[in-house]
C-alpha cells in the first residue's frame, strides 16, 4: 500500500467548490444556528467566485448543502431569470451536478434574494436567504460589541422605540423590508430585506430557512415550526403591503405580491413578483396542465 493509493485523484476543484474544511466550518455553524433559532453565528466566510454583497453568504450555505440529487432554484427579487440568479444557479449546477429548476415545488434548495416564493414550501425543502446586513440592531447601535450584549440581554427597546417614532412622525410604521422579527420568543432577527408580505411565511413554516451574510460573515436560521413574530405594538396591528387588489397584467392573477412597472403615460402596471408562479398561471390559462402548489396568500389574505 502506498500513500498515493490512499488519496483521491487530483481534481481542479473540490465537490461543491468549497473545500472540506470550509464546508465543515459552515455546517457546524448551521447546526448551531438551528439549535438557537434567530441567533447570529459568526463563520469564516470564504472567497467564492462572485463579489461580496452579491449573494456570497447564501451561496456558501447552498454549496455546503448541495448534493448531486439536489434540485436547485435561485431567485432574485422573485425572478428566476435575472443575470445574478441565472449565474448562481448555473454555477451551483456546474460544481455539484445538481439539477437546475425554476419550479418552487420541484426544488429541494431554494436560494433567494429578498423574496419567499408564493407557493408554500414543504418539510423537505430548504430556503436559503441572502442577507446584506444581518444585524437588526445596526441602525440603533453601531457598536457591534454593544449590540451583541443587547442581544444577550434581549434588550430590543431601541428597536421598539424606532417603531414608536415612526408612528409618531408618520402616523404608521414605515419599515418596509427587513422588518425586525422575534424568533422563538428570544432573538430578534432581520429576515433579510424581504417585503413585509413575506414575513408571515416564516412563522411556523414547515421548511427550514437559513439566512446568511457572506460579507458580514454571519448566518442564522429559522428551523421548521418556529415562531417568527414581527415586532408590533399590541394596539397597532402588523400590516403587509396593500397588494390584494392588484392584478398581474401578464397573467391576470390577483392577490399576490406584485412588482410595479411604470408606464409611459404615468400610470403603473403590475406583474407578479414571483416570476415562475406567473409563468405557471399563464400556462394554466392557456390550457396546459400545470401543477401549482398551495399558496401562502389567497385573495390577498394570508392563510397559515
Amino acid at each position: 500500500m502506498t500513500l498515493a493509493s490512499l488519496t483521491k485523484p487530483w481534481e481542479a476543484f473540490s465537490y461543491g467548490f468549497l473545500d472540506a474544511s470550509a464546508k465543515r466550518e459552515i455546517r457546524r455553524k448551521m447546526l448551531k444556528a438551528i439549535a438557537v433559532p434567530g441567533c447570529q453565528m459568526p463563520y469564516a466566510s470564504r472567497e467564492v467566485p462572485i463579489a461580496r454583497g452579491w449573494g456570497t453568504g447564501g451561496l456558501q450555505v447552498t454549496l455546503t448543502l448541495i448534493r448531486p440529487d439536489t434540485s436547485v432554484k435561485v431567485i432574485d427579487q422573485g425572478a428566476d431569470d435575472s443575470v445574478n440568479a441565472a449565474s448562481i444557479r448555473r454555477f451551483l449546477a456546474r460544481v455539484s451536478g445538481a439539477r437546475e429548476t425554476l419550479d418552487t415545488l420541484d426544488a429541494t434548495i431554494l436560494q433567494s434574494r429578498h423574496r419567499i416564493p408564493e407557493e408554500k414550501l414543504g418539510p423537505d425543502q430548504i430556503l436559503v436567504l441572502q442577507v446584506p446586513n444581518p444585524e437588526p440592531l445596526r441602525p440603533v447601535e453601531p457598536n457591534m460589541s454593544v449590540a451583541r450584549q443587547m442581544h444577550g440581554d434581549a434588550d430590543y427597546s431601541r428597536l421598539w422605540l424606532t417603531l414608536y417614532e415612526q408612528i409618531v412622525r408618520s402616523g404608521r410604521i414605515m419599515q418596509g423590508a427587513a422588518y425586525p422579527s422575534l424568533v422563538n420568543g428570544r432573538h430578534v432577527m432581520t429576515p433579510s430585506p424581504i417585503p413585509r408580505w413575506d414575513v408571515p411565511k416564516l412563522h411556523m413554516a414547515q421548511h427550514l430557512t437559513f439566512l446568511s451574510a457572506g460579507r458580514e460573515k454571519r448566518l442564522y436560521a429559522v428551523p421548521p415550526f418556529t415562531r417568527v413574530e414581527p415586532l408590533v405594538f399590541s394596539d397597532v396591528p402588523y400590516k403587509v403591503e396593500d397588494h390584494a387588489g392588484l392584478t398581474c397584467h401578464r397573467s391576470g392573477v390577483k392577490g399576490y405580491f406584485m412588482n410595479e412597472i411604470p408606464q409611459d403615460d404615468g400610470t403603473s402596471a403590475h406583474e407578479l413578483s414571483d416570476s415562475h408562479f406567473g409563468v405557471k398561471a399563464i400556462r394554466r390559462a392557456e390550457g396546459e396542465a400545470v401543477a401549482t402548489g398551495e399558496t401562502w396568500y389567497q385573495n390577498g389574505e394570508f392563510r397559515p
Partner: protein
Amino acid sequence: MNMQEIQGASARLELLPPQLMTTPPLLTLDGVSRRYGDVVALSDVSAVVYPGEVLGIVGESGSGKSTLLRMMNLEDTPDTGDYRLNLPGLSTNLFGLDRFERRMLCARQIGIVYQNPHLGLLMNHTSSGNVAERLLIAGERSFEALRGRAREALDASEFPLSRMDARPMELSGGMQQRVQLAKAIALEPALLLLDEPTTGLDVSVQALVLDTLKRLQRDRAITMVIVSHDLGVIRTMADRVMVMRRGRVVEEGLVDQIFQDPQHEYTQQLVHAKL
C-alpha cells in the same frame, strides 16, 4: 440662628414624611471603595437614605460625589462594598447583580438625571420617545399606553406638551433637563438620582427646574439623592447633607446643621467660601 431661620427649619421638618423616622432606610451603602489605577475615587463610603428623604452630596470637583452616584445607579462596581435597596424581593447586595438584572432594576426602580443631557437622552428621537424608551424597557407594548404615560410624565415635569414630539437637540438646556426628569420619573422609581441637574443653566431656569423637583418631591414623596457643587441648590433641595472630600465622607448632618454649624474644617471652608 435667627427666628426666621428657625421657622424655616421647622417648616422643612414638617414637610418630611411621617414615616421617615420609623421606617428602615430605602438605600444603604456600606464600605464602598473604588480605585482607578492609583487614584482613590471612593474610600470606605457608607450612606443611608430614608424613604421620601432628599440627600444632598457636596464636595469639590474630584471628591468622588459623581462616582458615588454612578455606583448608586449601578453603572460601576466598586472594589469592595455593599449596596442594598429596601424593596420587596431585593434582599441581595446589588453590586452582585449581573448586567441584565441591573438594567431591569434601574429601569424600574432608579431614575437618573445627568448634568449632561447627552448622557441621558437620545438627541435624535422625540422627547416623548425618550420617555417611552424607559417604558419599553419595562415591557410596555401598547402604543397608546406609551403615548399616554409619556405625556403624563412630561406634564408632571412641567414640559410644554405642545413640544412633546420635538427632538431634545431642538430644545433649550432647561427643557432637556425636564425631558430627562420626565424619563426618570416615568415609571415612578423608588429612587431618583440627580447629578448636577441645574449646572450650566441660567439662574431663572435653575429656579424653575428646582421648583419642579421640589413639587415632585412634595407630591410624590420621591426619595432623591442630589449631587451638586452648588451649595445653594443643596440648601434648597436637601433634607440631609453629606460632605465629601478625596473620596471620603468628612461630615454628614441635617442641612441646617451643616450650613449653620459645620464641624469639619473642610466643610467650614466650603460653606464660608460659598457665603
